[in-house]
Structures are given as structure tokens and as C-alpha cells.
């Protein structure tokens, strides 16, 4: 529409000024950069306000008010927190490996942001519509463990080291559950492209009658949804799987030596990862940007609005879980990951694979 016309003018302008060789490349660079800023800036705002929403929601659940001093309803609280952290000293411990110590929080936040490159926000609205989208997402979510383990090693502190060992073992264990669950999603969608995965959920018996929400993956793949979501909670080291930080035993684990902005980056990465896992859950299992029922009323909300609503509900579930469940013991965490999730996903791969060979295959 107007945006396309504007972009075409931009392309023509860039080509006329810089020539056919450099012009289109510059145009590509500028449009990609603008799109990335349009993703990252609102995302960082969401991360900031997710911290406030967490404190508010858990406050309400415990019959408290939550932050209410800074600005109306405490709405300026995240900004105050950010400014405070900005003016705190960045401590470099004497025994630490200085370069790795500084590098670790950056390696933590990079994958939490970069994975958004392949997330479809609405039909045709995706930064990089690549065929290997799912593979890229898995690669980047796996990358998160580097930040934690490098931080734990470089800090040269006992608590940090213990936290890093625990987190490395826990994160890789749950990555397997996540990976197997995504293999099942891939089997029924037949494509690694995230937009195709969303579109595939809009087809089927129920979707043809307008009842899209019954055709989404959550219904036939319900056990995989559970495995994926719970693994996501464990992967982001959130309660009840937060033995990695365990403030009452290893006092924040790998983050213990960090202060000021280096600590803030770990914090931001954790919340950005929560939003990312929620978005991926919505995309893989809840039809991404699709409206639940194809009717004029439900289509009043634009596709992006539906994605936002789904992500909001799933993120709030993360917070609800934190307010409800006590922390697991480490052996219980490992047992859940290895002895329950992996056998369950393997059985479901065989089951869905066999189902697809029968005449009752619903994913043709």
C-alpha cells in the first residue's frame, strides 16, 4: 500500500544516486536496519514492562499491590530501575578473566534478540523469510547456554562456578526435549519456514469450517505443547527450575559477581528469552497470527494483535507458574528432563509418524 510505494520511491532514489550496483544493496541495508530497529525497540520496551507486570501480577496473587510509587500505578518503575543500574559501578573482580567476564553478558543477550529475525509477526511480515527458520531458532536458543557458562567460569567464584555447572547440565537436558517436540511440529508441517508452519495450521477439517483454533497444533500435539512449554521454562532458568540462580542456596549463581549494566544485560536476556519462548509457542502450537475463528467479529483484531494477545497470555503463564510452584530439587529436574520428556517425545514421534502413514492422516 502506502508503505510499499514509499519503499519503491526509496529504492528508485537509492539506485539513481548510487548506481545499479551499489543502489539496491544500500536500499536493502537501510530497509533491513529500519525493520530491525522496529523489532528491537518495542521488544526492549516489552522486556522493561514485563518486569513491572511480573511484580504487579505476583503482587496481586499474594494480595499485595506491587510497585506503585514511581509514577502513576508504578508505571515508571522499569525506567527508574534502568537509570539506577546505568549509574552503578561495573565491577571487575580481581581474579576474573577480564575479557570473558565482559563478553559473557553480551553473548547472553545477542541470541535472545537475533532469534527474532525469522519470527512471522503477520502474514508476509517477517524480516528474513528463510527456509531454515526453525533450524536457526534452535541454533540461537541453544546459544544462550554460552553466556551462562562463560560467566560462571570467568567470574572465578565458587557460587558462580556451581551455578554454571548446574545450568549447563540443565539447559542442555531440556534442549533435547524441546528439539524432539519441534521435530514433531516439523513432521506435521513439512517445512522449516516459520510462516509455512503457521499457514499449515490454518488448513484442515475444522479450519475449512472456520474453526481455526481446532486445527492448530495444540490439539493433536498436546503432549508436545506441554513438553515444549515446560522445557522452555526450564531453558530460561525460571522458577520452578531456577536452581541455577537459587538465591537461597547459591545466591544468584553465575550472576553473583556482576553489577550495574553487566548484570542488567543478564536480566534483560532472561526476560527477552521468556518473550521469545512464548512467541515461539504461539507460532508453533497456537497458530501464530491467525484468529481463532474466521468471522467478522474475530477479524476486527488485526493478525499482529492476535499474536500479541497469545504471547501476552503465555508470558503471564510463566509468571503464574513462578507464583505457584516451589523450586524443584536438582535430581527431580534431571529426572523430568531425561526420564519423562525424552521417552514421551520419542513415543510421540513414532505415534505421529505412524498416524501420517494411515488413511486418517489429517496433515496432507
Amino acid at each position, binding site marked *: 500500500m502506502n508503505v510499499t510505494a514509499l519503499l519503491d520511491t526509496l529504492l528508485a532514489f537509492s539506485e539513481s544516486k548510487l548506481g545499479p550496483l551499489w543502489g539496491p544493496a544500500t536500499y536493502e541495508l537501510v530497509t533491513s536496519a529500519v525493520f530491525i530497529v522496529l523489532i528491537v525497540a518495542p521488544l526492549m520496551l516489552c522486556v522493561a514492562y514485563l518486569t513491572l507486570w511480573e511484580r504487579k501480577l505476583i503482587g496481586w496473587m499474594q494480595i499485595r499491590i506491587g510497585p506503585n510509587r514511581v509514577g502513576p500505578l508504578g508505571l515508571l518503575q522499569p525506567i527508574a530501575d534502568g537509570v539506577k543500574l*546505568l549509574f552503578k559501578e561495573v565491577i571487575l573482580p580481581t581474579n576474573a578473566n577480564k575479557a570473558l567476564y565482559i563478553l559473557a553478558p553480551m553473548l547472553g543477550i545477542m541470541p535472545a534478540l537475533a532469534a527474532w529475525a525469522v519470527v512471522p509477526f503477520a502474514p508476509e511480515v517477517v524480516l528474513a523469510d528463510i527456509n531454515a527458520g526453525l533450524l536457526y531458532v534452535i541454533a540461537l536458543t541453544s546459544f544462550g547456554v554460552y553466556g551462562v557458562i562463560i560467566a560462571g567460569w570467568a567470574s572465578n567464584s565458587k557460587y558462580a562456578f556451581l551455578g554454571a555447572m548446574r545450568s549447563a547440565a540443565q539447559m542442555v537436558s531440556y534442549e533435547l526435549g524441546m528439539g*524432539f517436540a519441534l521435530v514433531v511440529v516439523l513432521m506435521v508441517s513439512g517445512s522449516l519456514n516459520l510462516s509455512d508452519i503457521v499457514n499449515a495450521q490454518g488448513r484442515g477439517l475444522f479450519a475449512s469450517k472456520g474453526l481455526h483454533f481446532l486445527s492448530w497444533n495444540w490439539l493433536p500435539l498436546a503432549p508436545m505443547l506441554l513438553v515444549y512449554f515446560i522445557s522452555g521454562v526450564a531453558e530460561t532458568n525460571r522458577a520452578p527450575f531456577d536452581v541455577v540462580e537459587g538465591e537461597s542456596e547459591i545466591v544468584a549463581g553465575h550472576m553473583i559477581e556482576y553489577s550495574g549494566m553487566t548484570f542488567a544485560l543478564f536480566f534483560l536476556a532472561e526476560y527477552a528469552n521468556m518473550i521469545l519462548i512464548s512467541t515461539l509457542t504461539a507460532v508453533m502450537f497456537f497458530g501464530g497470527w491467525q484468529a481463532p475463528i474466521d468471522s467478522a467479529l474475530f477479524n476486527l483484531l488485526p493478525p499482529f494483535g492476535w499474536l500479541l494477545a497469545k504471547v501476552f497470555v503465555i508470558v503471564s503463564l510463566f509468571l503464574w507458574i513462578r507464583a505457584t510452584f516451589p523450586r524443584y530439587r536438582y535430581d527431580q529436574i534431571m529426572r523430568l528432563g531425561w526420564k519423562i520428556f525424552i521417552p514421551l517425545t520419542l513415543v510421540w514421534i513414532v505415534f505421529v509418524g505412524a498416524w501420517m502413514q494411515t488413511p486418517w492422516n489429517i496433515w496432507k
Partner: protein
Amino acid sequence: MLAEYFPILLFILVGLAVGVIPVVLGALLGPHRPDPEKNSPYECGFEAFEDARMKFDVRYYLVAILFILFDLEIAFLFPWAAVLGEIGLFGFVSMMVFLAILVVGFVYEWKKGALEWE
């Protein structure tokens, strides 16, 4: 084809920048008053003793090895899962044979107690 990956490269660079800029700002704006006590590793008020990089449980190592095996299995499953709709019964049965062999290994490690954390 490769041009589609350019925005991803750009995004990774932006992601790193989002990591670097706050740290640089924090280092510039925050105070800088080093102190031997403040910069020593935190140990609940005790003087730090022994090396922080101590011996650790071999089970962490075992989990890492098992992870590599299973992650490789996922890597093998990916291309198969992507085309399962087209390769039919033969493709399905071949992967089931592969999975069966891996499950034997999984049962073995389970029985050997490699997954026990008591």
C-alpha cells in the same frame, strides 16, 4: 538465496551492539572506585579459600556427552521430518529402525544409572 540471510547477519550485529552499548555507557557513567575487598570473589563474608575452579561431579560431564549424542539424533531427524509427507512408508520404517537402535542405547544408559542424580 544467500542474500536472504543478510538481514540475519545484520540482526546478530545489532544484537551484539545492544550488548556492548549499555556496558560502555555503564562504565562511563558509573563511578569507578576499586577496592581489594570489593573486587574479591563473594563468599558470604568469608575470606576466599581454595581455588574456585574446583573438582566437580563427573555426572555433569556424562550429561554433556549424552546431550551430544541425542542432539545429533535430533539433527538426523530434522531432514527426515521435513519430507516425511513425501517419502511414505519406506522412509518411515527406515527411521524407525534407526530410532530403535538408539532406544537400545538409551535403555542401556538408563539401566547403567547414567541418569541417576539421587
